[in-house]
């Protein structure tokens, strides 16, 4: 068993804040939504022009996406369904 927690439809977003306003937006977003920062380790470290990767659960990802769009934050979805990626780590072989 790889993961008892389900990451079904959880997503990983990548954002590259272009200015201080966008940095503040990410930090504010992290204070109201559960963002699991993959890079950097925490919202604390986010600065302009840094690639920021964070994981958001399935039930919050729609809202997070909407917030980013409303605030004209450009983002990329790095991983669309974390559970699938977790399973794919093993490249189809049973471990």
């Amino acid at each position, binding site marked *: *068993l790889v993961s008892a927690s389900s*990451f079904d439809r959880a997503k990983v977003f990548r954002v590259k804040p272009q200015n201080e306003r966008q940095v503040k937006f990410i930090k504010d977003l992290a204070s109201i939504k559960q963002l699991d920062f993959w890079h950097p380790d925490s919202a604390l470290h986010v600065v302009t022009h840094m690639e920021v990767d964070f994981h958001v659960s399935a039930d919050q990802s729609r809202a997070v996406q909407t917030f980013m769009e409303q605030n004209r934050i450009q983002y990329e979805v790095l991983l669309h369904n974390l559970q699938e990626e977790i399973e794919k780590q093993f490249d189809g*072989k049973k471990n």
Partner: protein
Amino acid sequence: FTARHCYTKYNSWDTIAAWTARIAKKYPKLVSRIEIGNTFEQRPMYLLQVGKVSGRKKTIFMDCGIHAREWISPAFCQWFVKQATRTYGKDKTMTYLLDNLNFYVLPVFNIDGYVWSWTKDRLWRKNRSNNSNTDCIGTDLNRNFNAAWGTVGVSDDPCDEIYCGTAAESEKETKAVATFIRENLHSIKGYLTIHSYSQMLLFPYGYTSRKAPNHDELNKVAEEAVEALSSMYGTKYKYGVSATIIYPTSGSSDDWAYDEGIKYSFGFELRDRGKYGFLLPQSKIKPTCKETMLAVMHIAKYVLNHAS
């Protein structure tokens, strides 16, 4: 006990623990297993000493898996030991290194967290202690070392992923590693800590913008190590001072090791740059480890020839 270890798969802690016993038994002249302490959940912490048994030798300490979810990191430590044992006496460089240098290899630093990442939450990062007297579990072990502890790039909220603990070395795992290193400082000339992801080779400092006294030398060694790494598959790595290349943080193990007097202290962030992040597929273990070996071997040769 007799099962063959698979180095191109991710292995659970039980498998790794059994492997540490087996490899030490199989190569008694080259590998010995040392128990350096216990984790919060009372698991023994095993360290492998790798190198030809002889008199006083310089040593390099290398740890993997300080962050539970960075699975490629323990995979590298296992790969390193495999290469050392299988190529000793065959490969000239490895033989020269192991004849003249010892490696202390800690295959999994954050064992409880690693077990948790296999059984309950693949994306768990911290250890599993509840020292904070809150409902939140875990301390970030790479914020828990006594290097400007608690001052920059950390959180004092136990619920945060970068919670630094109640004090420097408050965690049993940190204490065990720090104590072992302190007790062996006379021989330890190099320190390597293996993380993922981002593809970077970092050196002190993270807690200050001040340059390390041998900054230029560290920069040169890092440049050459990255060049060696890239020569295999063209993987691009950044290198430089942690505080500027990544971000300022205090309490990290490489800064601490440096300040303890280990003047060749480096942190690796292995593959990749975000395509898979912490979920690097098993098929990437072999190429990642092969290229990383080149960088580690370069650093080891440098330390052997230049550390006083």
